[in-house]
């Protein structure tokens, strides 16, 4: 089973514009993407529905990490996932061009919080997305106990998904 992630026109441009904004004290911004899902043969295609920025007041000061979210940030995102029947994808950005890669901290932290997203909606995959200035990557969980799968097949109108099946 392969995983593809598709977005509407200009979706990541909107996300990048939000993530590059300076926060009063956090070193970086994060957000959440709500996504639907569909099957294409044996493969799963995830479909970006909306971007949910994190309110300034929902960050906590923590010098050990670039952005520490308070409980309200996660709660609001999970409520949005529940309300819309969506998968929830945490998203942040590495400030460079070229393919981004998850850091050790990224991997450790996402293993801690992503499985809880299934409490909001157990029917759809959840995960994390990572942007660079011009590329993207993701990890998806198909169950709260499964190992995440990494995917780079992220497409939008004009950018081929490089043949899921065909």
């Amino acid at each position, binding site marked *: 089973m392969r995983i593809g992630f598709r977005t*509407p026109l200009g979706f990541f441009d909107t996300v990048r514009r939000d993530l590059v904004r300076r926060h009063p004290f956090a070193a970086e911004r994060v957000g959440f993407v709500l996504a639907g899902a569909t099957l294409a043969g044996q493969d799963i295609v995830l479909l970006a529905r909306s971007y949910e920025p994190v309110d300034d007041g929902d960050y906590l000061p923590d010098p050990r990490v670039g952005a520490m979210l308070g409980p309200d940030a996660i709660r609001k995102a999970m409520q949005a996932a529940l309300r819309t029947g969506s998968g929830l994808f945490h998203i942040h950005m590495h400030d460079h061009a070229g393919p981004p890669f998850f850091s050790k901290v990224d991997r450790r932290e996402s293993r801690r919080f992503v499985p809880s997203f299934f409490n909001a909606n157990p029917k759809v995959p959840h995960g994390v997305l990572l942007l660079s200035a011009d590329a993207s990557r993701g990890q998806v969980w198909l169950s709260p106990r499964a190992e995440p799968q990494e995917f780079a097949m992220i497409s939008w109108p004009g950018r081929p998904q490089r*043949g899921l099946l065909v």
Partner: protein
Amino acid sequence: MTWLDRQGFLGPNSVNVLTAMTVGVVGLSGGGSPIVQQLAHAGAGGFVAVDHDRATKSNRNRLVGMTPWDGLLRRRKATMAKRLIRRVNPRARVVALPTRWEDATDALLTCDLILGAVDTFKARAELEAFCRAHLIAYCDVGMDVHDLPEGGYLVGGQVALSLPGDLCLWCMGLLTEERLAQEASRYGRAGPAPQVVWTNGLLASMAVNLVMQLFTPWSGLPIRSTCIELDANRSSLGPSHKVRCLEGVVCRHYPLIEAGSPLFDLRALPKH
């Protein structure tokens, strides 16, 4: 040196982009056949060619690549499309499906863009709704001949690019409840719609132009949903004035929050 060297202005990575792309073409007669032929020449790497119909001799005035034998043998249009593509590019990935598009959705879901050359507004509406639900770009091609009250005919048509997150065919006024109702009331009484190869060719070329601009944006201009109208009587082809007036309008017909299948359930899938 490759066979695509003469289109290097499309960008240094254009050959890879074009080879990677998979294009669905629904309707492979007068509208769809010149599209698959041109996309094959342009280097598109993957095709899902869908048409449930078989060729008859009356298709030969417009179905590109058709021979008299195809009509006599009543060859499937999907098979003929595959032959047309492979003659140009033997390495193209082609899935030819001689079925209705509603039965080809698994293959169409793998496409980066779907071009529809279908006969009815109902089919257009359904195909676009499918594309919007799955965030697939849709390009619609349609040609029509109308009687003029003062005598003679008006030959026209349009190519509409409908991008998820931007204007749709309903926003552009190509689909209206009135048109669908009129079509439904004529159901079964309409004769064969007039079609000719040269106007279909113009519209197909414009559709391929939009596809190439979307995937290999050589102009640097932002790509948006658009509608290009053909007035064959005046030999004119240009952007729809109506769409120009819709600058800044947000599509309300297909909320992005509804993308995906409402029936999708991970727990019902085989063990992953």
